[in-house]
């Protein structure tokens, strides 16, 4: 049980008063961006990255750990109280959650969410601690061809398998890959697409791209609709969020079932928590039908809310494991965390545990600390957090605009970065307007350079023979699974299209 010792060492690092303060700040920020619709932990981390650059890496990552889970603690509040999910990870919890709120159980619904998020995150993080070394061992047998296959898998899974429109997903992927190409090419030293500008030799900063797409793009989108979309009516919560023993007993199996759905999806690049939350909701719905649960679909069943909530955080927990051990980001948020490591000069993957073991274990320990703090600030103060929904939108988005400018200017004090930010913000607006997914852009920007390097390395070894790409059982399996997933989703798209016509 070497892991336990290392984890204890991590706790010793994470539990200093200063680091506890960073977790607390992270947890507060994370919950705040989770509660407010349209923001999210990916955006929060991207905005804070350049600003926190003068901190030592451990402190910064401890704070990011709080933000990472915090974004999922608050995300259902808007769905439950307003019936307008602010994040796609919260759609599944909106159905039963809002019904509970309408039947006067809003506080109970919020408590169910917080405890569900806590349980899912706790179990998944524990699994990561025990299985991370196994994942690392697996990753050490990966060569260039395997890494390239992994990147292709992530690209196509996010852009084609799960997205609404395959063409739009691939288009988003192409934009991301193109943005990642700008700069000096590492292996040959060739300047690519820099237009002769020395400021572009290092490439377009990931922070500029992320803040542009997620923050400024969202502000443009809100601006395009703010005078037209109706205001939602909010259900007010009274009193403290609490769960009685009977409710707890009722919800516990659902939390555990949700966690079971969430855990494996942290390792699959399927874009994050949406697929497992819907799976968990669907299962609860079937179970409720079988046991003739009168609450489900009428006054709101606590189980139908508990399962998706636990699933979402369980996915986030194991996603951290895939990120640290394999260097594989499975969702947009994980991709930004990977970018954060790169900003500090570290590359997640098998070597990270050797080279920066202290930091990794402190980060894992602070995930636990963060969960405890989050549940402590979420259950008693659920109604207080809900008040964030009544901040006037114009101040909120004015603040976000100023913060985006600050964050991007802080990267390298370059005005050029700000012009790029505006251009990418407009692209982000166009993409939102036409429902083109944003996640493939972020994944492509972050995994693109890795995919290119590994592909060229593999082909250089084989002297141009493409056969090397499908030369090992691992690569063949990855491509076969990918092909099967693509075929399945094609069948599904076609079946629904014929149904709609009929």
């Amino acid at each position: 049980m070497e892991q336990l010792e290392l984890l204890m060492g991590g706790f010793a690092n994470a539990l200093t008063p200063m680091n506890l303060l960073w977790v607390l700040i992270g947890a507060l920020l994370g919950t705040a961006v989770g509660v407010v619709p349209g923001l999210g932990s990916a955006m929060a981390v991207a905005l804070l990255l350049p600003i926190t650059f003068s901190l030592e890496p451990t402190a910064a990552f401890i704070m990011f750990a709080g933000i990472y889970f915090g974004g999922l603690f608050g995300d259902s509040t808007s769905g439950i109280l307003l019936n307008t999910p602010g994040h796609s990870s919260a759609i599944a919890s909106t159905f039963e959650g809002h019904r509970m709120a309408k039947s006067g159980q809003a506080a109970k619904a919020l408590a169910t969410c917080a405890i569900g998020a806590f349980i899912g995150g706790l179990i998944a993080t524990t699994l990561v601690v025990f299985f991370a070394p196994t994942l690392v061992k697996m990753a050490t047998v990966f060569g260039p061809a395997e890494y390239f296959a992994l990147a292709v898998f992530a690209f196509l899974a996010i852009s084609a398998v799960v997205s609404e429109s395959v063409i739009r997903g691939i288009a988003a992927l192409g934009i991301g890959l193109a943005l990642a190409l700008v700069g000096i090419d590492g292996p040959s030293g060739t300047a690519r697409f820099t237009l002769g500008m020395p400021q572009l030799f290092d490439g377009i900063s990931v922070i500029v791209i992320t803040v542009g797409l997620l923050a400024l793009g969202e502000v443009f989108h809100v601006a395009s609709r703010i005078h037209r979309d109706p205001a939602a009516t909010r259900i007010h919560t009274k009193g403290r969020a609490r769960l009685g023993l009977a409710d707890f007993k009722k919800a516990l199996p659902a939390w555990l079932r949700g966690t079971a759905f969430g855990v494996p999806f942290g390792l699959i690049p399927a874009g994050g928590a949406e697929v497992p939350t819907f799976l968990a909701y669907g299962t609860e719905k079937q179970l409720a039908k079988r046991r003739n649960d009168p609450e489900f679909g009428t006054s709101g069943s606590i189980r139908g809310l508990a399962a998706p909530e636990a699933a979402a955080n369980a996915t986030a927990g194991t996603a951290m494991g895939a990120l640290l051990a394999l260097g594989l980001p499975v969702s947009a948020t994980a991709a930004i965390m990977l970018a954060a490591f790169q900003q500090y000069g570290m590359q997640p993957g098998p070597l990270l545990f050797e080279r920066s073991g202290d930091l990794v274990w402190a980060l894992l320990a602070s995930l636990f600390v963060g969960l405890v703090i989050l549940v402590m600030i979420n259950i008693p103060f659920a109604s207080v957090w809900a008040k964030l929904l009544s901040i006037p939108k114009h101040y909120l988005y004015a603040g976000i605009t100023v913060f985006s400018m600050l964050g991007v200017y802080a990267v390298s004090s370059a005005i050029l970065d700000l012009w790029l930010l505006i251009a990418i913000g407009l692209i982000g607006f166009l993409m939102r307007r036409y429902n083109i997914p944003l996640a493939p852009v972020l994944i492509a920007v972050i995994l693109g350079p890795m995919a290119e390097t590994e592909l060229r390395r593999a082909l250089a070894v084989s002297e141009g023979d493409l056969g090397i790409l499908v030369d090992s059982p691992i690569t063949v399996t990855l491509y076969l699974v990918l092909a099967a997933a693509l075929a399945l989703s094609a069948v599904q798209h076609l079946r629904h299209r014929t149904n709609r016509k009929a």
Partner: protein
Amino acid sequence: MSITQHQSEAGSATEPNGKPKSSFGTGRSELIVVAVLYAVAISLTIGTATMHVQGKSSPGPQFFPILVCIVLYLAATLLAIQILRRPNVPDNTIHPGHGQFSPDMLHDLGHLGKEEDAAYDAMPSPAQGKTWKTYSDWRTVGLLLGSVIAFVALLEPLGWIISAAALFWLVAYALGSRRRIFDIGVGLLFSAIIQLAFGAALGLSLPSGFIGAIL
């Protein structure tokens, strides 16, 4: 129809006020995305063709950009064909995730039925009786775009505190704040706190502008 997407087919396309409208442009404004994709693809092609390749590694630095170009041209062309054949009417619902997930897939996974769709449709829908010529509010977007451009142009001459406060004020105004005098104070306070917290405490160097030059 489904939980996250509400789009009508071209044949039954009606404007929110129920008035059928059918010019060529209806539902085809997405062609601007096609234009952006082609622009990116063409500039990549030119950049790849005119690249001063260093070294003799094989595959060289032009290899991957060629693959990306192919992907972009393909996606742009297919998207154009799709838009021309089946124009989209903008969906008016709140759409978290923006197309990242196939609603059909989520429908199947979640065993969703009419109840969920009904619950989703019960969400506030755009005000009835009032219609606009365009889906997007271009006046507000334009105001916002103007504010950020002005901010970037004036950041160095004016310094952080003044330009950030002006940006805050302009964005709040564009998004509908009507307390103009009060907002000047809020903006100045906000930018000054940032200057103090991040400039003084965390050591970010923010431009001080002409005020810094006078002091």
